[in-house]
């Protein structure tokens, strides 16, 4: 009997309610150990749809993905950005270690086109990651994207509004992003495995002092000498807070 129990435990088709699902395809390491530990497969799922629901734009949704995207680009796979809300900014992408040669930006005017482009990108083995910002998605369309994602081995991320959290979704992973004291709180709304009640905290982009990037001793002044001379006089209230 104990032999049978052990065998059952390792059977890939049997999953216990209190543990994370075993996945056939290992996840893409997120770069955040606390998050990896809570995700089935030990990272972002590939070949399945993931939804990220940020409280508002700019909360840190790209920072969360940065290490995974850098890793995919380094493998020579394209990352498709479909209908992003603003222009992705090359210097920041390069600084995050993402190979710019592998960035593909797709602008669309209609939601139908965004979903079509996402489906095409998911179906192509050339893409390692597909990030899409559709405005309105119906359940049937989500299901179609999920099927397209299952056909490939992509990291498929859909950015949606927080209010979409109440709607059902076929995505295998849904993460809501919210700010909390001193960092970014990731609540896993849905995953393959037991639900997670407490949010995962990621430290905030360290603001002043400690981050070497934030020392602004490199002003750029390509101007006439008179303009450069006045550059040093700054109002005191604009100093580092």
């Amino acid at each position, binding site marked *: 009997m104990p032999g049978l129990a052990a065998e059952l435990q390792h059977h890939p088709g049997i999953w216990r309610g209190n543990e994370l699902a075993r996945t056939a395809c290992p996840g893409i390491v997120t770069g955040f150990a606390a998050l990896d530990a809570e995700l089935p497969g030990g990272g972002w799922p590939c070949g399945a749809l993931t939804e990220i629901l940020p409280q508002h734009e700019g909360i840190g949704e790209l920072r969360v993905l940065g290490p995974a995207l850098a890793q995919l680009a380094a493998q020579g796979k394209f990352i498709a950005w479909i209908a992003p*809300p603003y222009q992705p900014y090359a210097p920041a992408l*390069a600084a995050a270690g993402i190979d710019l040669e592998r960035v593909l930006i797709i602008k669309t005017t209609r939601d139908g086109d965004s979903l079509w482009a996402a489906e095409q990108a998911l179906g192509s083995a050339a893409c390692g990651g597909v990030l899409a910002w559709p405005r309105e998605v119906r359940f049937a369309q989500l299901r179609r994207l999920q099927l397209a994602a299952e056909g490939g081995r992509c990291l498929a991320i859909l950015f949606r509004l927080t209010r979409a959290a109440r709607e059902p979704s076929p995505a295998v992973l849904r993460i809501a992003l919210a700010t909390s004291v001193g960092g970014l709180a990731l609540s896993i709304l849905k995953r393959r495995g037991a639900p997670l009640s407490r949010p995962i905290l990621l430290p905030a982009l360290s603001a002043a002092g400690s981050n070497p990037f934030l020392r602004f001793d490199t002003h750029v002044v*390509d*101007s006439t000498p008179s303009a450069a001379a006045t550059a040093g006089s700054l109002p005191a209230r604009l100093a580092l807070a």
Partner: protein
Amino acid sequence: MPVAAALALAPTLRLRERDAAAETEALLGIATWAMQCTPNVALDFPDLALLEVSGSLKLFGGLKKIEARLRQGLAAMGYSARLAAAPTPRAASWFARAGRERLIADAALIERELSALPVSVLQSKDEETLSSIGAGSIGDLLALPRDGLARRFGQGLLDALDQALGRLPDPRGFCVLPEKFYAALELPAEATQAEALLFAAQRLLAQLEGFLAARAAGTRQVSISLAHRAAPATRIELGMVVVRREAAHLALLLRERLRQTALLVPVRAIALEVRTIEPLAHCNQNLFDDELREEGNWPRLIERLRARLGAAAVHGIGLCADHRPERASLPTEPNARQLALDFNLRPFWLLERPQALEEKNSIPCHHGPLKLLAGPERIESGWWDGADVARDYFIARTADEALLWVYRERSPEGAWYLHGIFS
């Protein structure tokens, strides 16, 4: 069958004038297409194309394989054909004209096989006389004494027989490939449906593929013009990221473009034109249909996306050596080489146009007052091209914890603007 008899049998029959020019055009099109199998293609107007395939047997894997390939291609172009092969061009053309689809590779068999053909294959003015003297087949002619035959019907008949049997040389002038590709197709009925147009266009694309394969070339640009009865032609340009020639892929791109094109008037004819061709070597097919091959297929994805969304909507992104933030990041061709440049901390998102911020109690506000975390970083540049900027950039935090990239104009007003969002 006379027209009256045909109409009596089938009253709904639609009669069309035979168009000799169109036939010649079609035959030339077939010749161009067939040059993918052999460089030596000769034409025998009005309805015969001769391919010298002896040099291609090894490459294509035998006569049967070539025949299958030709049949498939001809069907894709919408033609039906009778194919025959023989050791001499004249014998092959006789078999084809007689409708006997034989593939004879052995010269020893030729005489026996030819004997069974009717004399009508000679297309001789003396056909009736030949029948009246009891010579109904080639075999009967061969059995007659040669000198008598020559006296009665001329040396020409004898020469034709000898050429068919390979006793006399039968030189043919081969076609020369044109430098550009142009093919047109008149639709059987006027069409507005994309699917109907695509069906016709696929025939032309198949012809194009053959032409390009014969030249070991491909193209990046295919022009398609849709002719209307009264309106000026609609033009569609298909642009490719890499040099291509596969008809199936081009058809896919065209399908997307046709769906996007609003056709207000019915289309009467389709013309396909390729002005510049570029060398494209045959590539070895992978033994296994694995993903590695697929991964290299990124141009395919980009072409498909561009066909539907437009060329400008799909692009890569690159760095530019400029301190002005709006010029540091530029759209590029996908997969273009990139500069490696170092910048200070920059936001992931940049607003296309800086957004003016309110200022309350000398503090900039965006959904509440902003807290300036770091800065200023002074960027003052571009006086030489008229788009000069003089700004002090700050990293600011909003009340709901988002990090923004804001700047203050270095001017007497000192207006605040939002330029980027850290994410």
